[in-house]
């Protein structure tokens, strides 16, 4: 065995310690439920969901707004939750993947993703579905090429893009915005 650590580790709290900005009250309405949190202001909405509310359906793939895995809906619009702080969303209505099932029934997009095999590893999937929800609500995409373009903020490394388009198109045709 190599070097052993000297002494038992313990938390160090000295008078000179570097204090952090105090926690603040944040109130989020998540999937229709009022959630009150005490958070430091630097906490992203993504980390608030995953680490403080145990809503781990929203994924972290880059933490820099480059991959789309963390996409949620804020007041109905798709937003990258890693690029927004929880505190600035005080009072906002947030929908995550966990909020799409109603009375045990999957949302049509969720069903279409399963039937078209629009995922493999599943890690980008909640972000893809939330992004597609936002896309449909925006109403800008009319053609396959436009869907492709407007879904391009959501990377799928497994390469399921054609199946994602098929799933989104099917739902758009069934329920035009």
């Amino acid at each position, binding site marked *: 065995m190599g070097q052993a650590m000297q002494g038992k580790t313990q938390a160090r709290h000295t008078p000179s310690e570097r204090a*952090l900005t105090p926690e603040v009250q944040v109130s989020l309405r998540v999937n229709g439920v009022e959630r009150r949190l005490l958070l430091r202001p630097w906490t992203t909405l993504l980390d608030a969901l995953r680490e403080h509310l145990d809503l*781990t359906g929203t994924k972290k793939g880059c933490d820099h707004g480059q991959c789309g895995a963390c996409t949620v809906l804020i007041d109905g619009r798709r937003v990258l939750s890693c690029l927004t702080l929880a505190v600035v969303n005080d009072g906002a209505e947030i929908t995550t993947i966990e909020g799409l099932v109603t009375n045990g029934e999957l949302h049509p997009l969720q069903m279409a993703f399963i039937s078209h095999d629009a995922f493999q*590893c599943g890690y980008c999937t909640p972000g893809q*579905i939330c992004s597609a929800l936002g896309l449909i609500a925006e109403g800008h995409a009319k053609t396959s090429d436009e869907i492709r373009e407007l879904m391009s903020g959501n990377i*799928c*490394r497994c390469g399921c893009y*054609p199946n994602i388009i098929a799933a989104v198109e099917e739902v758009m045709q069934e329920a035009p915005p």
Partner: protein
Amino acid sequence: MALYIGTATSRIDGFAKVTGAAKYAAEFNVPNLAYGSVVTSTIAKGRIAGIDRSAALNVEGVLDVLTHEHRPAMADNDQAYHDEVAPAGSPFRPLYNGRIMFNGQPIALVVAETSEIARFAASLVQVEYETDSHITDMYREREGANSVKPPANPIEALFTPPKTRGRPEQALAAAAVRHASEYYVPVEHHNPMELYASTVIYEGNGTLTVYDKTQGVQNVQRYLCGVFGMKPEDLRVMSPFVGGGFGSGLRPQFEVVLAVLAARALQRSVRVVLTRPQMYVLGYRPAMIQRIDLGANTGGTLDAIVHDAITVTSQYEDYFRQETGWSGLLYQCANAKYGHKLARLDLATPCDMRAPSAPTAHFALESAMDELAIALKLDPLQFRLRCYSERDQNNDRPFSSKALRECYRQGAEAFGWDKRNPEPRAMRDGSDLVGWGMATGMWEALQMPITVRIVLGANGHAEVACATSDIGTGTYTIMAQVAAEMLGLPLDNISIKLGDSSLPGSPVEGGSWIAASVSNGIATTAESIRDELLRLAKQMPDSPLANAASNEVALVDGKLVGKDDPSRSVSIADAMRHGSVDRIEQEKTTNPANDTSRAHNTHAAVFAEVKIDEQLGVIRVTRVVSAVAAGRILNTKTASSQILGGVVWGIGMALHEESVIDHRYGRFMNRNFAEYHVPVNADIHDIRVIFVDEPDDSNPLGVKGLGEIGIVGVAAAIANAVYHATGKRVRDLPITLDKLRL
């Protein structure tokens, strides 16, 4: 009778994945969890002269800063760090000592009450280095590259170049038409969507439950037991869901070592999540320079193949795969010679990345074949058919099956290859130049020893367990399909347990071998269940199966049924009730047949269309047809997705992907999704996957596996299409618009 094998069954884990219920390594939340943030080296080579932890330790909420000088004990010998798939050498030991072997090396772990505090404090750790000069440019090390060592055992022989056959130099000199060129593939990174992470749960009795992002829970468990001197029963490794791997999770990675170190130091549960940039030292597809020299006769067949490769490895391990042997395996050619050298650089060791060596080798070979076909004034597909190989000439043996000819035929027909104008720049669509290219792909059909446990309940439900992984490949689903069919039960009555080191043994999930291994493993174990049911059924009074032998009965629709006389049957429930058992449990190990008398391979024919804006040089891959021969397809839906994904990877390899090193610092510069380009939705257009029939008797179910074959040949088909569109041959990937200069 419900048949499931071969059907387009939706993923049984689909509900969990579309609802967010599927939990990945960083998503197991437990009380009193501490968070680790990794500090990495900013030099490529040298020693740590000192680490000042004081500023970090002084931050409110910081629990500890682990370094090589301040950490719990770890093993001090290479053997302990040598995992199941480690190459020869001296494996990297995270936080072991002050030696720096690559830029981005983990050198400290800050542990704090929250991830934000840990990350902030990590920025305050001060490191002083004694810096040595480094080399990370393979062109600078080209002359210093050494040939790979001759194989010391049969495993190494899989990766070292095959022996020379015939007289290749003389054949080249005498060839009527020759083509020789050099091809370059840069470093590429896997970039699975999920960040590498471990959640280590410190159980009250000192045992650990480790949720890790890995393609092999038992490989990680054995490794951690070695590194930390722990007993297997005290350390359980789980990965029920894995957010992509592509090879990066075959070897245990440093996040799990650091998380276990911290959990043992603090006697507390700890989570470590890497950042995307930190993942660029976990392994990569090695950069490579390949030279191919082909000689053909006037009849348009190959007389000589000489294929030499130089690939990158680290200073401490010899990573390489079978880079050159594909050439003489794919085509009929009496004379062939191969060489493989390794360039040692001050980088982390490369690792397997989707079909390791095959897409790179095929990029070189299939580009060269295209160039030679043009020199011979032959259609590229016709040339390949003339060179079609019916035998594995590297080892002088037949193939167990090879339906590549049918791939060519069906692929060409679906693509419309016969309408191709052979002249470059002859096909247009408005202002776009149109190019059609094709290439062949080849991969291995492997099977590994595996153990499967099945527990059948009297209620007709069965649990199937094996410590394999589902990294998105569809393993959960094919396991359930095979079990349902073999046990004669509805799919919904099957539950699958995997991704848990406490389950029956499995190799790592890689090399396309899991589908063949686990499906045949389930078949074997299901036969034992059937035999046990038959034993019980025979004991029943007036049993209709009293004289039946085990090979005369099958499980169908919840009953044990005579194969020749279905009217003779006993229900599973009756047999178990009469036998007074409420469960039947069988656990069986299945070994592959070890049939070395034949070659076992999958094949693909890839046809690609590109459209290139003549003014701007922007390349779009507008159509791809991939026709695949891969034995029996267990699930046409998930299998098609795997090939689709492979094609998308091939498009990325051809046009986008390149990890760029700043050689002044020996550091990858584009360590993020904004600068390391992978295909996005707008890059992907029409992709058609065809599976051709290919009966194969290498294993009872005839399965070959297909995680890798989808990518092989795609980059070459696109490069060939780009040449056809523009008349420009690009031999170094990726084909970016600046290289076209139309």
